[in-house]
């Protein structure tokens, strides 16, 4: 994906600074994780290729004029390979063939797994917040610990989610994400005001590997 280049070292530095600003304004331990995809969806190109192949074979076998068997054979094989590759490689086609609910579910499953695996639920005041951005699915998930859900109303979290979701409508997705995160800090600070002398409980070098 070409736009992965937006998430370069400069972006990472700015992201870290933005998180530090959020944590100064609000009593939350925030981690942002950006992943290219939450699931491979290998079945989608396979299904598409199978359907295309079936269609091609049907056409070629039942056309009223004679067709060289080699043409049938090679066209079938080529159709399968081409369709599989095209659907697998071209994200905009693949995304349209996957149900939105499925993408939402996969992004949520992945986000929850990351939250658990990175031990974000082990902070003392339970103020861990994971903002997971799944680029292929165009989904932003917010997974918070107890204190987040206890103190921040659900409709506010929904507003934050919807706001962050808008980054996929912008060409500069990375930049848009940074701007939205700064806005989020202001909102969350009202419900979880910053605590003096707070200790960072989530390590600076968070190492998450599913």
């Amino acid at each position, binding site marked *: *994906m070409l736009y*992965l280049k937006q*998430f370069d*070292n400069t*972006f*990472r*530095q700015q*992201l*870290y*600074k933005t*998180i530090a600003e959020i944590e100064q304004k609000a009593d939350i331990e*925030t*981690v*942002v*994780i*950006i*992943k*290219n995809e939450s699931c491979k969806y290998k079945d989608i190109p396979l299904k598409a290729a199978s359907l295309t192949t079936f269609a091609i074979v049907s056409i070629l*076998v039942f056309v009223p004029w*004679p*067709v*060289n*068997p*080699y*043409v049938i*054979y*090679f*066209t079938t*094989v*080529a159709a399968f*390979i*081409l369709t599989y*590759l*095209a659907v*697998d*490689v071209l994200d905009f086609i693949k995304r349209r063939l996957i149900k939105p609910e499925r993408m939402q579910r996969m992004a949520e499953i992945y986000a929850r797994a990351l939250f658990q695996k990175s*031990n974000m639920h*082990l902070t*003392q005041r339970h103020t861990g917040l994971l903002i997971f951005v799944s680029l292929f699915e165009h989904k932003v998930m917010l997974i918070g610990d107890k204190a987040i859900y206890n103190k921040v109303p659900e409709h506010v979290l929904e507003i934050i989610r919807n706001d962050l979701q808008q980054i996929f409508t912008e060409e500069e997705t990375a930049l848009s994400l940074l701007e939205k995160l700064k806005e989020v800090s202001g909102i969350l600070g009202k419900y979880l005001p910053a605590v003096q*002398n707070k*200790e*960072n*409980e*989530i*390590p*600076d*070098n*968070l190492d*998450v590997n599913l």
Partner: protein
Amino acid sequence: MQLRKKHKQLLLTFLLLLLATVFFARPGGGHSYSGGTGHTGGYSGNYSSPDGTIIYLLFRALPPEISIPLVLIILFFVFLKNQKAKDDDFMVVSSSTSAHIRNKSQEIAKLTARLKAIDPNFSYILLLDFVWLLYTRFYTYINDPKKLLEIQAFFKSDFLSSIIKMPVSYKINQIVIGNIAISALKIDEENVKVTFSIKANMTIEAEKKAERYLITEKWTFERKRNVHSPEPSKMKALRCPSCGAPAYFTDSGYCNYCDTYIAPGEMHWALAARAVEKMQIISTNQLFAYSAEAGTTLPTVKDPFLHKRMAIFAKTHNTNWSDYWKKFESQIVIPYFEKIYDAWSNLKWEDARAYTSDRLWEANKFWIDLYKANNARNILQIKVVRIDAAKIDIDRYYESITVRIFASGLDYIVDKNGKLIAGSKKHSREYSEYWTFIRRTGVEEDKIPVNCPACGAPLDNINSHGICDYCGNKITDGNFSWIVTLIVQDEEYSG
């Protein structure tokens, strides 16, 4: 041999097309694109090549206006798929970047300089010793409230009360601290706060079962700003900050020897906060795991005051820095490096005792013992390629020089029969590490000791406490010569 994913894809494409060749090729005969009247068609041809190549069939079966673009399009998509596969591991986590770590370390260096101006007795080396000691004692006494109370003067407010009220049922021993470094420093009007990032491993015994854990935590110490650091004897041991007697405090915080109330943080550093960041069980597999070097290409993290301190160091020792540096590289860094790695490779860690601090020796002894228990040996046939100066620290009690050593060579693990378990006997590995050398201020010795620097006896009788059993002098606290006190991996070093 496992094929890479892209090779599998290419092979699959090739096999699919080859299948056509095998299916249709006939020795001595062939076929031509002659059409036919029905679906099956009939074929005859004068093709005499016995191979029936894929490309030939493809070009014969389909007109070239279709077959050529078709092949090109397929190859193009295969290429795109391989390119996309490189993004499989793409992940951005909002953690420190190396640039941020460098900036942070520079900030800490400046604050440390400010702290030294306020507290002339401040010594980073001695503070590390103190933290090391307190950390080890805390975990050793964690299930013994009485023992914890004896050292309560070093813990602020209610830190210990919850543990004392509800003692834990597990026991902790074999505590080894692998790395310890300042991660934050705050100086305000009233207090000074220092946060240490500590990586340690320890055995936790619970329910008649013992497991080894790797723990990463942050410990924050606090002290009144106007207090000067105690002298070395009170930093290297847990002693009453008032009378200097061994730490033994009553329930209400009075020293049992001098009857002075010691409010935590008023006269000495006290632990104010603790956060466990990571806790995982260590398995033997981790001993034999080799991962790609992550930090070798990172720029050297240099202290912002390095050049200034080079000048101060040179002036103190009546020399010029470039001459001293050449001597330091050739007579200290390289010989120490070779001696320590020889001891490691030969599993004779006692041979490194005279050159390492107590902390470093104990931390690495754990791994040596683990190798021995698993009948394995990590052999390092490496040479120093380059040495960069990274930091110089001079205080009232110690001077320290931190260098970045770039090395290259063979690094592999073998079993007792010499069979390769991990690593490579053929391919060199390049890596770098940050080594910190320390010695007491005023010591001028600049050579690796070949005999006990106190009595001149051979170095074959240095016990595990770093004491020469011939003369009874402790030679591993920098009183006589340089010793190595810290070895940090390049990707972890932050200044």
